[in-house]
């Protein structure tokens, strides 16, 4: 039980940390010229922390996504990356194609519960594959970032339920972690 609680705390802290980093970097880029932006970002941060504390965002039970479902995250990432970087369709169109095709997966067999769970995983992976070639230099990077995003997706099953942008946040956490590891190794 304590292990599950620690994992949940770690995941929520990672998401909050990611958001604080994002906002801090925006302020850092133009803090000398834009005072209103600093005040705005501070207000957003305060409301965010308030939201984390008081909004009912998580399910009480501890649960993790099945590996058979999570495996589709790196697959979605690689597919989107191939369309985006190799075929040169661009990130938006590639993500749209992969996401739309994935959303029709349940139509293959309407009785299958497994097929109903796949579109969300593939769509999460497609966000990872939207990375530019500068950020994601090879297909192996896309695969690694997709796998990490899949890990975050797995442990966040009962967290941030129904909140839009959750999949993107998991993808972003995967890409950032992969970039950090890559910069240490390279």
């Amino acid at each position, binding site marked *: 039980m304590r292990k599950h609680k620690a994992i949940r705390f770690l995941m929520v802290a990672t998401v909050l940390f990611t*958001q604080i980093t994002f906002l801090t970097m925006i302020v850092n880029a133009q803090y000398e010229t834009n005072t209103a932006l600093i005040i705005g970002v501070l207000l957003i941060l305060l409301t*965010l922390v*308030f939201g984390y504390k008081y909004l009912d965002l998580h399910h009480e039970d501890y649960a993790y996504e099945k590996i058979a479902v999570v495996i589709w995250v790196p697959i979605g990432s690689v597919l989107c990356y191939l369309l985006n970087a190799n075929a040169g369709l661009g990130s*938006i169109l590639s993500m749209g194609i992969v996401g739309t095709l994935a*959303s029709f997966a349940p139509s293959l067999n309407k009785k299958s519960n497994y097929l109903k769970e796949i579109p969300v995983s593939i769509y999460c992976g497609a966000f990872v594959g939207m990375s530019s070639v500068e950020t994601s230099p090879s297909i192996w990077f896309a695969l690694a970032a997709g796998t990490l995003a899949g890990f975050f997706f797995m442990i966040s099953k009962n967290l941030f339920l129904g*909140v839009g*942008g959750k999949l993107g*946040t998991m993808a972003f956490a995967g890409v950032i972690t992969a970039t950090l590891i890559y910069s240490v190794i390279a």
Partner: protein
Amino acid sequence: MNNFILISTGILGATLTHFVSEQLRFGAVKASALLSLIVGLFFYAFPNVLNIYLTAHLPIVFVGTSFIGMVSSKTLKSYTLLAIAGTLFTVIYIHKNNVFDGYGGALGALAFMALLTTMGFGFLVSNYSKIMRKISLVIRKVFNSES
């Protein structure tokens, strides 16, 4: 003018996706992906319809705010709050100055942030009197303990 068009797109992206997802019962993934595909195809086929700035940023804002519209109706019902979240997303996007450009998931993370902030704001407004009562209680306690 460009910013006004982007903000309008942000509002449209969030509300339209939510409408297609919940009212037309497409589901969150199909609604967001299908609308993004339509917008992406349009700008792929007609790259010179709008000016360079809007051609570069309008599809990104639409796709980013469509992630906001993926919110379930159990979590957020109000179209007004969705519009506020879409506006907030666009304002942050306009000011973000290439931060995390090219990082997959950055738009989703921004959408998540905008939505959570809006939901927090909505909670704050709807529980205003309760929160003010608690704050005044704390202030009274502090003053009483000091005197």
